[in-house]
């Protein structure tokens, strides 16, 4: 079939023929599945006809095919990207309509969302912008159209990004710092931002192991679990405060990192992945079965919430001898205070993770990690101890996982082994891979895409997972090395970063 449409330029009637062909196929496929529905009426089962759904299916097929034709027919890349964006929005729109059968003919959902609330505006813009950006940049490598201007534009954007990483990072940090002021009263926004921030931190932690040291770790969630259970158990059994347990959780997780590291030192690639996967499962299975110690599948509940650095308490009813956070600052009591405090806490932890990682990259240990990823034998011949180097990567990565775990436990107040399944490891790894291995900002973007979007579009029910899957496939097709897969040198002699990037883009 494809050979029939392979010619580089097709005339109008051929395009119409092609569209008609796909419309017929869409009709044949949708008429029985979507077009007819059995309805349970008092009189018995009846067939209801749903031509509008069939029309939507045919319509979106034709629009999609048209977009492909336009791509094929060498039209300006900007127009192509716009069309692909429009198609994506149309498909998205259609999925929403499938869900809300009642107001099928109401105003477009995207429109509603865009004007619903401040958060939704950001969401809608972000969604459209990301689809557009992916469509646009993907054509850099794969576009049939070789339009010089836009090629230049895309390299300009890349150059601007890569030579201003610091500024972009700073803007991002400022945005995350003022975020609670923008959405101060919106409980779900702060909650979601906290959740995304946990995954950003986990992504940055895993980035040390996978992105820098090149050790594929499928069991990262084990360290997260160790951190969470360390805090929960220490706080329950020994009544230790969160601020004391936080470093302890990190130390415990790091020791588990070393324990995992030892047996897998000789392994690499797939074999390493399998062993780490097994390690993650072992931790989970131990947590489930060691009932006396961990509470088994019941988990640990009513874990102590963090205090304001041991000075004040966030509860409505302050325990004897303590003062409330609102009293300390002379404010009205609000349950949002704790949420915002938790948000800033995880933000601070994540920023520490990022700062330490970026600093380590420029230190001998970080360079040795990267060298180890590139060639272990060469490392040995230069006198680098591969054992210690690998173990340090495992330990430091695990330590940040442990911090995040302790935070998770104190935020949730309840933990059980169900929070630490393999799926979590896979999500964290996906964040690192999608973001572009070793890229700090990439991890942030990927965490927003992977965690933020599915949560934001929760109203789309199971369709969000469909769109999510399609998005992942799209990223893997067009940016197989991740969204931002550039390695910035840790040290430059002659060139500035800008010149270096410009040279590479030539």
């Amino acid at each position, binding site marked *: 079939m494809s050979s029939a449409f392979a010619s580089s330029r097709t005339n109008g009637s051929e395009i119409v023929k092609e569209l008609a062909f796909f419309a017929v196929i869409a009709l044949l496929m949708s008429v029985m599945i979507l077009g007819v529905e059995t309805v349970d009426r008092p009189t018995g089962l009846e067939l209801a006809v749903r031509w509008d759904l069939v029309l939507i299916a045919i319509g979106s097929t034709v629009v999609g095919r048209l977009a492909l034709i336009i791509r094929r027919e060498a039209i300006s890349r900007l127009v192509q990207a716009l069309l692909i964006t429009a198609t994506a929005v149309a498909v998205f729109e259609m999925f929403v309509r499938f869900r809300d059968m009642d107001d099928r003919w109401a105003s477009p959902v995207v429109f509603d969302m865009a004007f619903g609330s401040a958060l939704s505006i950001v969401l809608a813009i972000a969604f459209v912008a990301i689809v557009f950006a992916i469509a646009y940049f993907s054509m850099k490598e794969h576009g049939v159209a070789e339009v010089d201007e836009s090629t230049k534009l895309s390299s300009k954007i890349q150059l601007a990004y890569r030579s201003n990483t610091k500024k972009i990072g700073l803007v991002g940090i400022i945005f995350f710092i003022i975020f609670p002021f923008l959405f101060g009263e919106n409980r779900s926004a702060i909650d979601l931002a906290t959740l995304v921030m946990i995954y950003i931190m986990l992504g940055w932690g895993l980035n040390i192991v996978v992105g820098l040291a090149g050790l594929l770790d499928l069991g990262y969630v084990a360290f997260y679990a160790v951190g969470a259970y360390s805090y929960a158990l220490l706080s329950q059994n020994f009544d230790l405060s969160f601020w004391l347990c936080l470093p302890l959780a990190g130390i415990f997780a790091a020791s588990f990192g070393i324990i995992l590291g030892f047996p897998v030192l000789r392994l690499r690639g797939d074999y390493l992945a399998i062993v780490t996967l097994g390690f993650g499962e072992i931790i989970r299975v131990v947590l489930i079965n060691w009932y006396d110690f961990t509470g088994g599948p019941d988990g640990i509940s009513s874990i102590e919430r963090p205090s304001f650095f041991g000075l004040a308490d966030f509860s409505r009813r302050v325990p004897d001898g303590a003062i409330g956070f609102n009293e300390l600052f002379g404010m009205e009591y609000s349950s949002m205070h704790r949420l915002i405090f938790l948000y800033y806490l995880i933000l601070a932890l994540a920023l520490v993770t990022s700062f330490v990682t970026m600093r380590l990259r420029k230190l*001998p*240990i970080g360079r040795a990690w990267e060298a180890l990823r*590139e060639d272990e*034998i060469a490392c040995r011949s230069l*006198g680098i101890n591969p054992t210690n180097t690998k173990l340090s990567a495992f330990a430091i990565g695990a330590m940040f996982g442990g911090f995040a775990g302790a935070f998770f436990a104190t935020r949730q107040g309840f933990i059980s082994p169900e929070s630490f399944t393999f799926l979590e490891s896979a999500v964290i790894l996906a964040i690192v891979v999608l973001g572009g291995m070793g890229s700090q900002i990439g991890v942030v973007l990927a965490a927003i895409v992977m965690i933020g979007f599915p949560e934001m579009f929760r109203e789309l029910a199971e369709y969000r997972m469909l769109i999510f899957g399609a998005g992942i496939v799209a990223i893997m097709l067009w940016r197989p090395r991740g969204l931002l897969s550039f390695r910035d040198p840790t040290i430059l002699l*002659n060139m500035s970063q800008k010149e270096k990037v410009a040279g590479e883009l030539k």
Partner: protein
Amino acid sequence: MTDNKLLEVEHLTMRFGGLVAIDDLSFTANTREITAIIGPNGAGKTTVFNCLTGFYVPTEGRLTLHANDGPRLLERTEGFRIPRNNGVARTFQNIRLFTGMTVLENLIVAQHNRLMEASAFSIAGLFNLGRYARAEKEAIEKAKFWLNKVGLYDQADWSAGNLPYGSQRRLEIARAMCTDPSLLCLDEPAAGLNPRESAELNILLQSIRDDQGVGCLLIEHDMSVVMQISDHVIVLDYGRKIADGNPEAVKNDPAVIRAYLGEEEDDELPPEVAADLNVDPNAH
């Protein structure tokens, strides 16, 4: 001549199961000299290097490195400690650079151990304390010296993988030299180089020998390199040493010629075959 002995290999034997890769090999290499190890393919040359640099543990034998502070036994040292503590550096037959990292980073990684100490195992380095900053500056100076030496200063910020082949070979030598070795093992450094590049290589290796005072062990098939720059040649065949001496002597050694060109009798055909071939072409 014997008082500047650098490396002493005594009765080195390496067996892989039933295969004897090196059989009772003994030789010495001197400091400020280039010692070439040559031999047909599969003679065990690279295996000698792997034993010297700790990738293999020899089955038998003693490998003594006469460092400034006394002799050290290489076969008793854990692999990665040989370059770190004993000053044996090597390059590889198939270049092993850190291709994704820049040329400069490759040379800085080579100085890992000194920098690691200066950064107090990353703790002081994390806060950029003065001692680490100084050590890093020194490391960059050393890298610059070697970049100039191998003519890669202008490409210092390139990814190592983007360098042309000949430059990659030179970078690998520079990287090995950045570890401050007393013995440099070069595994076919001229492989894949054009004549001009191998002439440049000769100059570089001579300078490493004369200016840096480093002893070089050289595995090489390119005889123009071997005969011009080496002070001492060892010939291996099937894991045994068949000749040892200065280039001129080795070149004319009948055992060496036999190893490379085969036994003369082998070239002769068995009598019955010869008889068949000798049938008069005009017979039919």
